[in-house]
């Protein structure tokens, strides 16, 4: 307790008196800690902590969800995916409410078990998320997956979206709290571009409130000294080079692609698709899936929330018709979604 108080005092001494400082976190678990610890209530008024694109199911394009729902309706298919993904709404409903043959998994290895247990079915693993979930999916392909299993890849790249955001002058980001789990895979060095090219301090932090406070203090110190760098206050877990083995197998099976982000649109080089050599494992190719045009959710501003351009309570649906029980937009579904977190943290 006292240590947190000390760091907060330190933060207050480091914040410039005369200007607004905007620090963005890009990880749902970070936002969770920030909201649930009441951290914003302790920060100086001119220091904003903005939740950014940290929620994998939130950015998953509607097209992939609709394709997943349709696939699950086929008698020869079992769709498997992570729990949160089942509840994300689309114009055609959600997988849970409107799909037919689907199973929830918490690890890609369960997808293999389901494929083995159902040799007469075609198993579609709807694999979503940032680098943290891409790595285990690559790992099961490396180990060898059953013939009847294919992968509907909806993976997204964290550094790419962060680079889009840093270029947005309207947002005016002064510093990034880099995501702890993603950093464990890609390595702290993956963020060097932000300090070197854009002069934006970027500090890897863990998930305890105290560790996040340390990260914020480190960003402020770099800003004050005018020496932006890649910092790491989570060095016990995150190495500079990251998990090289994971990076190798991700690169072996996946290639960078221009992909859609829900509520945002197409971002060049921001996603991962299976390489053409592995087309037999690529659900989109195996089933000949077509891209479905995204429909707008009336009133929903998830896209702006993901980009850090609006806080959840700026949405007119928030807490009124959009609640964790009746989510209208993707950000209200997952424990990593900013709207869901703000709803629960009060």
């Amino acid at each position, binding site marked *: *307790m006292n240590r*947190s*108080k000390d760091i*907060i005092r330190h933060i207050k001494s480091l914040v410039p008196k005369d200007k607004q400082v905007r620090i963005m976190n890009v990880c749902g678990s970070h936002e969770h800690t920030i*909201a*649930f*610890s*009441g*951290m*914003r*209530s*302790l920060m100086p008024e001119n220091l904003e902590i903005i939740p950014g694109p940290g929620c994998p199911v939130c950015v998953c394009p509607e097209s992939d969800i609709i394709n997943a729902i349709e696939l699950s309706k086929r008698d020869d298919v079992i769709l498997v995916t992570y729990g949160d993904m089942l509840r994300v709404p689309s114009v055609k409903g959600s997988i849970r409410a409107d799909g037919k043959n689907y199973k929830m998994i*918490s690890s890609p290895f369960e997808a293999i078990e389901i494929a083995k247990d159902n040799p007469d079915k075609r198993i579609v693993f709807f694999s979503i998320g940032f680098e943290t979930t891409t790595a285990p999916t690559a790992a099961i392909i490396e180990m060898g997956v059953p013939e009847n299993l294919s992968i509907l890849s909806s993976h997204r790249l964290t550094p790419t979206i962060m680079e889009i955001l840093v270029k947005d002058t309207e947002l005016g980001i002064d510093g990034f709290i880099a995501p702890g789990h993603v950093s464990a895979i890609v390595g702290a060095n993956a963020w060097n571009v932000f300090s070197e090219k854009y002069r934006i301090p970027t500090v890897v932090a863990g998930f305890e*409130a*105290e560790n996040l*406070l340390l990260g914020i203090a480190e960003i402020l110190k770099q800003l004050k000294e005018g020496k932006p760098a890649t910092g790491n206050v989570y060095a016990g877990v995150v190495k500079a080079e990251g998990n090289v083995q994971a990076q190798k197998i991700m690169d072996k099976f996946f290639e960078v692609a221009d992909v859609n982000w829900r509520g945002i649109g197409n971002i060049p080089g921001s996603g991962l698709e299976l390489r053409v050599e592995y087309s037999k494992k690529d659900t989109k190719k195996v089933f000949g899936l077509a891209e479905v045009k995204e429909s707008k959710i*009336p*009133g*929903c*501003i998830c896209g*702006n929330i993901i980009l850090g*351009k*609006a*806080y959840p309570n*700026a*949405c*007119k*649906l928030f807490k*009124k*018709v959009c*609640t*964790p*029980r*009746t989510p*209208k937009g993707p950000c209200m579904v997952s*424990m990593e979604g900013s709207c869901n977190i703000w709803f*629960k*943290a*009060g």
Partner: protein
Amino acid sequence: MVAVSTVTPLEQDVLLNMNKIEIGHGSGGKLTRDLIENIFLKYLKSDELKPLEDAASINLDHNHKAAVTTDSYVIRPLFFPGGNIGKLSVCGTVNDLVVSGAVPKYLTVGFIIEEGFLMKDLEEIVRSISETAESAGVKIVTGDTKVVEKNKGDGIYINTTGIGEIVKPMDLKNVSAGDKVIITGTIGDHGTAVAIAREEFNIDAAVESDCAALNGMLEPLFDIAGVKWMRDPTRGGVATVLVELSEATGLGVLISEEDMPVREDVRFIQDMLGYDPLYLANEGKAIIITSAESSDRVLEMLKGHPLGKDAALIGNITADFKGLRLKTIIGGERVLDMLEEDTLPRIC
């Protein structure tokens, strides 16, 4: 910040049109209250019902008041670490009486059993009922049995009704700014034990439900004048009880995360599952509102009882704001509201 958002009144109507019972209507939280206000209180209007306390106070004659309460138990699974539906059906009803300032005396028990239910399981449940009632000093005085066809029930449901003699009338009107909030032990144990017992999560941990009759520990507190109000935080947990307290009194409640007793393993598991122990069910804990002067004495007496060894002072009643607020470990503050979503349905 750019925010563009519109929703028409018609859209709102369509979106809000919830005309069926949902699982959350049984959560003890916001939806349950909506149901009580919109349906039950619309037709059921007795003065005794109105306070919506855990037990009703009824006059027997000028000098004697009785507390009456009823509760139905639909927990899944029926057997869980630390108890079973039978033990729970006695403890829950005994606790509702004692937190109403009554000495629990008599219970009735009604069974709704599904065709095909194993006789040995029924016997195990009834044996638990007998043992728990005996150790709590209450008598089972009448009962009822109904059987429904296979697949028309879920094993067994139990209803118990309890009657006690009120010796310490508890009234929220007595609660005032400056009072202290005490919890009799660690929170979230029952919710966590049941969640693990359901085996929906692949977790191996030895957390037991706190399911226990509290009358032995709480009755001695009736003699302390400063004890003003008690409630057992079952469904909806500590947070829901304190939000209700705040709404009923118009006062604020500030609780401290640092002082909240939570078992280390419970905290770890709930972090992982994304639940907040403040909203998880307890079946052997009470929240006590006491005057500041009496709080030390209350804590001392609680700690002298095996069920109260982890008792802690967790907060204050204040007139500075309305609602429930949590002072976090790092010293931040956030508002706690009633849960809309049901974290774990059929927890009791």
